[in-house]
Structures are given as C-alpha cells and as structure tokens.
C-alpha cells in the first residue's frame, strides 16, 4: 500500500484563543429581556414605565431578599453536589427563637415575659446560632453517616418545622421591639442580601474555601486524594448554609414584625430554583453566586411585573412556569450555540 501522502511538517498552528464570556452572561441577558418585556407591556397596558420607578425597583429586590439569602447558602451546598431542603424550616425556627427574645417590654402575652428589652445582639445571635446548628447537624449526618443529602435535609425540614410549631404551640409571636425590627425595614434586607452575595462570591472565587467547594462537587474522591478533608469541608458548607437560613429568619421575622411557625414554607424550593435558573448544576461542581443572584432577581422581576401589568392571578402561575422554563431554555440554547457541538 502506497503512502497516501508524504510526511508533511505541520505548520505552526496557533490554537484560536477564544475568550469565553462568563456563563452568567446568558441568564443576565434573559433577566434583561424579561425586564424589558414588562417595560414594553407597561407602556402598552398601563402607560407607565416599569423600571423607571425607584420604589418598584427596590420592592423587586426586597421581596426576594430572603429567598436570595437562602439561595446563596444553597448554591454552595449544590456546588458540593448536595441539596438543602431544610432552609425554609430552619428559617422558621430561627425566626421563632429570635422573635421570642425580641418582644417589646411589658407585652402581656410575651413568650418570655422576663426576657424582654434585650439588646439586639441577643436575639440576633440566638437566631444565627440556631440556624448554624441545624446546618451543622445536616452536614454531620451527611459527612459521617453518608446518607444522601436529600434525606438528611428532608429529615431536618420536617423536624425543624415541627420544632418551630412546638416552640409556642403554634401561636405567633408578635409585638417585636424596634431595636430588632430595623433589620427587616426599608432597604435593609436588600443591603444584607447584596453584601452577603458579595462576600460569598469572593469566598467562592478567591479563597481556598471556594476552590475546595468546587473540587468536592466535581469529584469527591479525587478531592480526598488531593488532601482535602472532605468531611470537614462538607460540614462547614452546610453549617454556613444553615447560618444563612438563620439570617434569613431574622430578616423575615423583623420584616413582618412577628414570628410565625409557618414562615419560609416552601422557600427552599424557590431558593433551589433561583440557583438552578442561575446556572448552578445539580450535579455539583459548577455554578456561581452571580448566577444565583440573577436567578433570584428573575423571580423578583416576574412577581413585580405580574402585579404591575395586572395579569389575572389565576394564570400567573401558568405564565411563571413558562417563563422559568423559557429562561433556562434560552440560556441553554445560547450556551450550546456558542459551543457549537
């Protein structure tokens, strides 16, 4: 058989260096698209600007701040390859405990009549510690007994909700002191949410904590062989997620000026949805806080937009479901086209 061609020296072929846009870019475009859609509909239907209203812009973020806080924690849990179903319930426990220590002095039906008028730090710290503790229990169960995170956090979800209910036997806790409710008033929740997002964005991208989080999610065995103490790190990530749920509990109870055992019901799903819309992969190892924040904002813009253009609330769910799917499909499509596979 004859050689089909002569041995040829390969000319210097430079690999085309293609600068990739960060993956969040796509979903950001989707967010802007949705906002502009409402802007257009706004002028058409109501003759008003949707975005040109500072108060509305604030409300858009405000209403998803709590879910956003949870989503920041859950994003990290998902990056490690886990899931956290307990955040909504942990929020409730933290809210109840914190609220019970933050009631106005002299309120007759106070939970702990003798413990009123405490400085802000006491209820705040207790709420945060309760949250972190719940997260720590989640993490320990997952790391030590190796049960699926779904089960460990499902157990915590059911248990914590029950703890919140049994705490005052279902009675809401009201009359919270003003030295406590400030963290839920005005734009404070928005500030807390965004600052937290920045902190964890930095933590994930520029610290060892972040690198290890991704490594564990991408391949826990390889992470262990690379000298990472996988169990300890998992505990840490879940504890932080619990801490953030606790913080969300403080904000929620301060915002409503009351503690209710039903608080945060179903927030875990919204938070996971926000993260996944923002590009966090449930398989672990991929995702960013910026994406989660954008995913959260999509939920917020949608909610405000619906109210703004006055969509019949019966069909809001239909539209919302379709938008969620369409947003991710659009993002996916854009990424795929870029990949050209």
């Amino acid at each position, binding site marked *: 058989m004859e050689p089909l061609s002569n041995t040829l020296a*390969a000319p210097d072929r430079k*690999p085309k260096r*293609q600068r990739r846009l960060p993956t969040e870019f796509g979903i950001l475009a989707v967010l802007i698209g949705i906002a502009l859609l409402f802007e257009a509909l706004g002028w058409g239907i109501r003759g008003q600007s949707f975005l040109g209203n500072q108060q509305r812009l604030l409300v858009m973020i405000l209403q998803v701040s709590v879910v956003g806080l949870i989503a920041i924690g859950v994003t990290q849990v998902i990056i490690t390859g886990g899931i956290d179903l307990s955040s909504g319930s942990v929020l409730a426990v933290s809210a109840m405990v914190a609220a019970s220590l933050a009631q106005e002095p002299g309120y007759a039906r106070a939970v702990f009549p003798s413990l009123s008028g405490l400085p802000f730090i006491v209820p705040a710290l207790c709420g945060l510690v309760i949250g972190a503790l719940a997260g720590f229990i989640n993490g320990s169960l997952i790391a030590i007994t190796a049960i699926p995170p779904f089960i460990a956090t499902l157990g915590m979800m059911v248990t914590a909700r029950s703890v919140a209910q049994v705490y005052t036997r279902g009675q809401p806790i009201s009359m919270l002191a003003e030295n406590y409710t400030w963290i839920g008033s005005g734009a404070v929740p928005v500030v807390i949410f965004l600052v937290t997002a920045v902190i964890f964005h930095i933590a994930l991208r*520029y610290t060892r904590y972040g690198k290890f989080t991704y490594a564990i999610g991408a391949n826990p*065995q390889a992470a262990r*062989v690379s000298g990472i103490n996988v169990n300890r790190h998992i505990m840490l990530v879940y504890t932080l997620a619990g801490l953030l749920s606790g913080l969300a509990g403080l904000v929620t109870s301060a915002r409503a000026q009351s503690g209710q055992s039903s608080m945060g019901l179903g927030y875990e799903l919204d938070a996971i949805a926000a993260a996944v819309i923002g590009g966090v992969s449930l398989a672990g190892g991929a995702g960013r806080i910026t994406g989660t924040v954008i995913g959260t904002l999509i939920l917020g813009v949608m909610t405000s937009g619906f109210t703004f253009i006055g969509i019949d609330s019966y069909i809001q769910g239909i539209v919302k479901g379709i938008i969620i799917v369409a947003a991710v499909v659009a993002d996916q499509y854009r990424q795929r086209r870029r990949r050209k*596979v």
Partner: protein
Amino acid sequence: MLSPGTFRTVREAGVKTRADYLLEVDNVRKEFPGVVALDNVTLRIRPGTVHALMGENGAGKSTLMKIIAGVYQPDTGEIRLKGNQIKIATPLDALEAGIAMIHQELNLMPYMTVAENIWIRREPLNGFGLVNHRELNRRTAELFRRLAIDIDPASEVRDHSVANRQMIEIAKAVSYESDILIMDEPTSALTDREVDHLFRIIADLKAQGKGIIYITHKMNELFTIADDVSIFRDGRYIATHAAKDITREQVIAAMVGREITQMFPKEEAQIGEVVLSVKDLALEGVFRDVSFDLRRGEILGLAGLVGSGRTNVAETIFGVTPATGGQIRLNGQPIRIRSPREGMKAGMALLTEDRKDTGCFLALSVLENMQMAVLTDRFVTGGFVNQGAVNAECTKMKDAMRVKTPNLDERIENLSGGNQQKVLIGRWLLTNPKILILDEPTRGIDVGAKAEIHRLISRLACEGVAVLMISSEMPEILGMSDRIVVMHEGRVTGILDRAEADQVSIMRLAAA
C-alpha cells in the same frame, strides 16, 4: 447515499461486496471551540487487516473514531462503507451498518450485570416479550467461552476490576459481529497476560475478514499485530505505511515531528538512605505481609498481574484506605497515615490509577485541576489563594509537561486522555513530594510524552525523590526501576534487582 438500515439488510443477507476497502474516510474535518480536532483527514481500511492509528495525545484519533461510530458529526467530509457513501447520524446507525467501537473511556453500567451490559438493546426475549435472563446469561457464557474469558455473566460490573471491565467491553464489541471493529486503546488497563489474550481474539477476527482499527501508544503492540499503520499529528493525517515496511523510529518521528533518542532514559541516581519502610503491611481481605524499603533517589517498580493488589498497597501507604495491620516507617520513625492529607504531610504524593474516578475534576478547568493539591499548604494567605503565583507555577508546569490545551481555563474534560494524565502528574509535582507514588503513570500517554515523563521521573530521582512506580507495562518497569517488587494475590513474592530482572523472572514471580 445509503441508509444504515439498508446496510443492515445487506449484511444480514450475507452479500459479500467486493470493495477494496471496507471503510474510506475522506476529507473529514471537525472543530471544537478553540480547537481544530481534525483537519481534512483521510483513512482507508482493508478487509482482514489490523490498521493501527498512531499519534500523539490530542492528535485527533479518538475524535475520528467517534465520528465513524456516530458519536460526533463531522463538519465536512464523507465516509464510504464498502464503496458506498453513508451518513452515520447516531451510534445506532453505526452499529446497524456494522461498525462497533470500544471507547477509550469505559462505557459500562456499574449496577447492571455483565450479561445485561453486553447485550443491552439486544436482550433475548421470551414468548411474553419479557427478557429471558437465563438465555441472556447462557449467551454471555457462550461468548466468554469462545473468547476464553473467565467472568461470571451474572455478576455486577461494579464488582470487577478495571481490567475485567475492559475485557467485558471487548466482549461486548465482539458480540456485535460487526465488519469493522474499532479499539481505542483497549490495552491501557491490561497487563501482558490479557494483552496476549486480546491479540489472539484480534487474530481470530482478522481471519474472518473483519477490519480492525487499533489505537495504541504502545510501540511493541504495533509491530506485533498491525498490518497497516496510519499516523496523525495535530489533527492532520500524515501518512499510511505497511507495518513491515517501517521502523519504530520512523513511526515516532512521523508522530512527533522530531527525533526521540531514548525511550527509557534512566539516569543513574545517587541512591541514599531508606526513606520509606513498609513492614508486614496488611489491608484485611486484600493484601498482607507486604514489606519493602524505598530509598532516596531510588525508583522502585511494583509489578504484578492485574488484581494482585498493587493499587491497594499504594493507596494504603498514602492513607486512602488506612492499613489494618503492619507498620510504615518514615525516615526510620514509625508513622500512622489515616488519610491522604496525612500522607501529603509526610511528603508523599500519589498519582492514582483511575483518571476518571479518582483523578480529574472533570467539570473544572485545567488550572483548578492542577492547583488543587498544592493549595492545602502553599499559595494561600488568610484563606485567599494567591492566584497570580499559582498561575505562574501552573503555566510553567503546563509548558514543562507539554500539555496540549488552548489555555489553562479549558475544561479538563475536553482534553485528550493523555493530556489529562499530564495535568494530574503536574498536580503532584507542584507539591514537591519527597516520596512520589505513581500508579500506571503513563497509561494512555503517547510515546513522546512518555519519554518526557520517564525523563522527568529519572530527574526527580536524581534530585533525591524516592519513587514507587506501579506499572503493567513490562518494558517500562524493566527500563525504569532500580529494584522491582513483584506481587501476586496480595503478597510480595519477590524483590528483584535491576541486574537480575527480566521479563521471565518477573512473570514467574507474578504468576507464582
């Protein structure tokens, strides 16, 4: 253009076509983002031959094969099967047209039985349309008997070693009774004994007039079984020769585009004091009574058949699976190593055997993959990673290892297998280990890179690193080791000096 269905009908009718070539590939081009994986390549396969594909890591061999097997679609180009142009849109099309492929990465379902894995989609059914498991196992047993493979068809795949899994993949590919059988580095997980076995299977298939495309990085295999050799470089087709007309050096030169002088460039290192001493080491149910010394500057080979327990010994020393008995001494001091972290603190590094399972972070970039181990104790201040410094180190390492990647931010998943391996070696070298444990370090690595890695290992030894190297490749073990520990069924059966070791003496101990 013929449809794959038509081909199936023709094949089933037993019509013999008289085309000169079973398969012709013309001007196939395939681009991935940032990479031209194939640049107008051409390939011709004659019936009844073994056609070897040679090329460096990332040359595009697997990509071309995946196009033929319907996994990828070419950007341009055409494929002719027995003279007829054909469009292969899915793997099913390829299978129906008579093309089967053993992929470079294992493609098995761990929780399913061996028989279920082999006959997936082609299960025998009984009168009710239900899968006849007895017949399924019988067929598998029959196939295994024909191929002389000793594996229980009803066992689950996850219970089998990598080598066994590879044999299962081979059996599965053979079971399609296809005209063209593509084998992408089938022997990278096998020891000589299974390789011989595979070659007998291949010879038999060849005798039946089938065309076999065989990808390997092992030169000696090439001259044992190949009839024709096609060489690729940087996504381009270079040349095709008859194997008997070409020398090893010519092949290598064509592959790498430069001369490689010495394959196993062992330099004589100054062998110093005992660094690591293992005494009666045991892991319950896997191995016991493993004793040997490892010295500064020494390369200690660890040889044995597949399943002899070499990997487990390495993992136990490093702390992946803490020992259940025996003693490890580090510089004369007894030490207990209960986790890889502790292994690393003791100055060790372990390149694991299974790239995919315990090596790569597939979803992460080359950079992240390379830097991960070193971050446990360097380049971190106050929790923050000093990314500039790490980048510089990793870039240096990447260049030194000649990793073929568009940039450090590429996902490691998109690198060819060999380049992934280089990244992982780089990961461990960055930690400046005193004791370097390498489990099959050159698995799936091309000759050029292999020589580089061997030179690297030698140089590290000269610098005083103690190297424990597991390899199933006899020439590598013989060429590189100062001493060779041979294992058989979880026990050390002998330790040979470089001078007294040869293929026969090792095999005798390994099969003892």
